[in-house]
């Protein structure tokens, strides 16, 4: 069995230097990484535990700045955060679906993103909400990248050696806006999405028409997908059933599903249509109800 080292740096500078070493792996909640390492499915020579770094544990909302969500903040803190529930309900929906209580105590949204599963439950809502990833590099600079560009394939991200996801930034929600995330699984709990859909939308002041909408899909492509045409088709529309139908069709057309043990490509494409409409109705209801 290969030997592993463990380090728990307290600063970003130390962390990026450690992560630049060969075989270094970032450790946040560990709910994916520990199993992968122990079952020898991921190579690791050095585990860099990021939970002692203050920037990665920050979770704060400000009406001007938006939401700053540290990469190592565990799910339970996010799901229980009053500003997340109120202003970014789609993110709350996605995060609350990740595992049971035990996993919620540990798993982080930053880790969910860096693990880059196409079916990750937090990513479609982040994309729909226009989140950006703030990345620290070994040279000390900060890169900002939209979340839809972060994952490059199953289990792969744009992060290079020594690079580290510091936090996610979500812009302040627009007036009269809301969001939702829905996934389909064959049971009620504790499963991996067959399809996931995140939506965010904003209405005009008298709430008669949509100003903008963003729709993102999970588990129907090598990475979570933003489907810009589907969202754009809703702009200026009253969001009647025919409008939702049109957005659902455009989303289906942009989905890239495969067939596997969780569902056939056709079945997934069908689910995309159903879930896009349902998620839009929920977000709409949230704007009108709140």
């Amino acid at each position, binding site marked *: 069995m290969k030997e592993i080292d463990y380090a728990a740096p307290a600063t970003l500078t130390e962390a990026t230097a450690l992560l630049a070493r060969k075989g270094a792996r970032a450790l946040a909640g560990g709910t994916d990484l520990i199993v992968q390492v122990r079952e020898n499915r991921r190579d690791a020579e050095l585990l860099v535990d990021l939970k002692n770094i203050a920037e990665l544990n920050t979770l704060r909302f400000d009406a001007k700045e938006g939401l700053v969500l540290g990469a190592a903040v565990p799910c339970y803190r996010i799901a229980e955060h009053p500003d997340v529930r109120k202003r970014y309900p789609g993110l709350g929906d996605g995060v609350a679906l990740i*595992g049971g209580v035990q996993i919620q105590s540990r798993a982080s949204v930053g880790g969910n993103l860096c693990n880059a599963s196409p079916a990750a439950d937090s990513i479609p809502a982040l994309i729909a909400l226009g989140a950006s990833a703030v990345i620290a590099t070994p040279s000390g600079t900060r890169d900002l990248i939209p979340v839809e560009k972060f994952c490059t394939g199953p289990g792969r991200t744009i992060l290079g050696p020594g690079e580290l996801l510091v936090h996610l930034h979500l812009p302040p929600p627009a007036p009269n806006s809301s969001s939702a995330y829905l996934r389909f699984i064959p049971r009620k709990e504790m499963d991996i999405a067959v399809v996931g859909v995140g939506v965010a939308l904003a209405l005009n002041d008298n709430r008669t028409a949509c100003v903008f909408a963003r729709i993102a899909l999970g588990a129907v492509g090598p990475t979570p997908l933003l489907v810009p045409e589907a969202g754009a088709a809703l702009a200026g529309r009253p969001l009647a059933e025919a409008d939702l139908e049109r957005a659902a069709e455009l989303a289906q057309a942009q989905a890239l599903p495969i067939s596997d043990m969780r569902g056939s490509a056709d079945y997934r494409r069908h689910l995309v249509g159903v879930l896009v409409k349902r998620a839009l109705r929920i977000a709409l209801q949230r704007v009108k109800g709140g």
Partner: protein
Amino acid sequence: MPKKIHVQAVINGQPMDFLCEPRQSLLEVLRDELRLTGSKEGCNNGNCGACNVLLDGRLVNSCLVFGAEVQGKAVTTIEGIATAQGLHPLQQKFLEHAALQCGICTPGFIVAAKALLEKNPKPSEEQVRHWLAGNLCRCTGYDKIIRAVLDAARLGS
């Protein structure tokens, strides 16, 4: 010889020192190094809850925590649940309701239920079932476990 890390933590209220290898899980440390064999290994990958402990008061799967990560933290295992005065009400109610058969899942269920009752002393049946969704039992069919937890809550544990 793999390199060992020196860790200091408070286990069931007692300050303790131990050495562990970086790849060792907290579950392995508890069972193999500290000889606290109450926490069980069911799946070793975060699915079954048999290894549940409290880490700084939060319910976790100890198979999904590296031993090295508990430096400076407090861990409560099943061994820390009963007191000198006797069994914890949850333990008593598990006995009364026959909420166990082989018993492998029991330490995890009791630690998990204790975390629930600390957060929500009067949970509904649905809340109990939802909270315990991360704990698997191959023997009881769950109903007796749920009844034991609800009864312990009634008792005000």
